[in-house]
């Protein structure tokens, strides 16, 4: 009796874990399979084709949306990283450091509140919705991640490094570029990547702040889903799944390598 119970428990956990992974991956697998389905509107298998990928490659709308998304994401990364590094390096040793919690507000507020607030601001100031408003909004999202991440890394740096560099005759500028920036680089890279992905991923804020001119990739997918599915979206989803996986793999590989290097060095 006891043995039977123990046996059930021994298998119960792996089985429930397996079920959760099944739940996580079944929709993904089905989308990938159906992106090769030779049928227009059916969710029924009608044979293998790659023509949706061909159509995806030749769809001007998708390329436009991708270009828009990339422009917005890259601008948001550059702007939020620049301002974030400046505020951490110049603000940490002044009274401004006490105001750093202000940057946590972006993460604490529900996204719909941010979206509504930004829309109100832009219409109050008569700013035309488009790239400007989108980049402003995504840079705000970015700052919410960059400042806490870079500040955390900066606070962990040995303060004597800056002092030593200054004592040895380097200017503050030289100290920043030759000592601090290389040390901050891992956190800058991680924060930049995170902001890039979050910007590419964001739908709600873009939906409120982009107007008709700057349609991003998630907005394109949203309008396609609403209009009724077309197989091109299946192909696009599959491509995005693959790209995300490569990103995550690369990111974990870098982290594992960094941990390994740290192990060797220290």
């Amino acid at each position: 009796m006891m043995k039977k119970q123990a046996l059930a428990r021994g298998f119960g956990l792996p089985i429930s874990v397996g079920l959760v992974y099944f739940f996580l991956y079944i929709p993904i697998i089905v989308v990938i399979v159906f992106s090769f389905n030779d049928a227009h509107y059916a969710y029924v298998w009608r044979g293998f084709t790659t023509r949706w990928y061909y159509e995806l490659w030749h769809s001007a709308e998708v390329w436009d949306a991708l270009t828009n998304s990339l422009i917005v994401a890259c601008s948001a990364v550059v702007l939020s990283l620049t301002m974030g590094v400046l505020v951490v390096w110049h603000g940490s040793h002044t009274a401004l450091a006490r105001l750093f919690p202000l940057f946590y507000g972006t993460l604490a507020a529900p996204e719909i509140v941010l979206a509504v607030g930004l829309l109100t601001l832009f219409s109050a100031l008569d700013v035309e919705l488009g790239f400007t408003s989108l980049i402003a909004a995504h840079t705000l999202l970015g700052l919410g991640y960059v400042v806490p991440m870079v500040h955390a890394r900066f606070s962990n740096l040995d303060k004597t490094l800056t002092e030593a560099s200054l004592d040895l005759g380097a200017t503050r500028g030289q100290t920043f570029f030759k000592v601090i920036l290389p040390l901050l680089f891992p956190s800058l890279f991680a924060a930049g990547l995170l902001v890039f992905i979050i910007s590419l991923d964001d739908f709600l804020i873009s939906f409120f702040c982009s107007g008709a001119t700057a349609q991003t990739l998630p907005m394109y997918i949203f309008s396609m889903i609403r209009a009724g599915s077309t197989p091109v979206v299946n192909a696009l989803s599959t491509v995005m799944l693959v790209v995300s996986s490569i990103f995550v793999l690369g990111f974990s590989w870098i982290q594992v390598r960094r941990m390994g290097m740290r192990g060797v060095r220290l």
Partner: protein
Amino acid sequence: MNIVARIKSACMRESSFFMALPAFIWQLIFLYVPLIFVIVASFMKVDEKLSLGALTLEHYASFTDPLYWVVIGRSLLLAMCAAIACGIMAYPVAYYIALRATRWKNVLLFFLILPFWINLLVQVYAWFFVLEKNGLVNTVLLKLGIIAEPLRLLNTPFAIFIVMLYCYLPFMAMPIYSILERFNQRLIEASLDLGATPWQTFMRVTLPMSLPGLKTGFFLVFVPSFGEFVIPVLTGGGKKLFVGSMISLYYLDAGDTQLGAAFTMLSGVVLLIVSLFLNWLFKRIVRVSAGGQ
């Protein structure tokens, strides 16, 4: 000290101050000023210029209509169900990866986090294939002869719930995993050695210790799913309103910014009160479970 050096260092300090400013200004203009705008707009009469005389409570007065409370209550219920279901599903996985898995630990962890990085719209879209009338679930159930007619799954509250559970699962799994990962396994051994059954050990040692992770996960799921827009709109058929869709209706379709702002404020306040209450409840549970030992 000579005066030139003093001026120079003063300038340095000043320039330092100015270099730190852009980020703060950006944060103020695009986060805090808009929030103030929303608050002010919620007290403004429609179509009037900003002045003291244009202030009104009429938008808030309209919240005596139960319609608004039904929408808020529905969103609260959905967010609560999603958070609890996420907890039930994520716990065994996080437990297994943190305490049991050996060789496949990193692989399992990778596949647990991966969906988190997939675009939300792609995740939602993927579920159409599973829940559609001719989708996977119906096909399988029909083939097995369990049902005679295809079930209506898409455009129901059930679809919203399942997709929400799916999209927010990593938010729950990660905090639980990270707390169990740091968990001292000797405590489990000690408990077993002292004669507790595995079940008692889990209930009296492991679970109470991992409550902080569950709590973090709960709020990471509960707060965003309360205002969730995409999932109810795409999988719920759009007939039942939720807080997110209601707000967007006011702002984007009806153009009623003032009432929209008031409704945003109302739901924000409700969310805050409920979160504070749940936080208090969690603290009590932790205290009681610690006292029980």
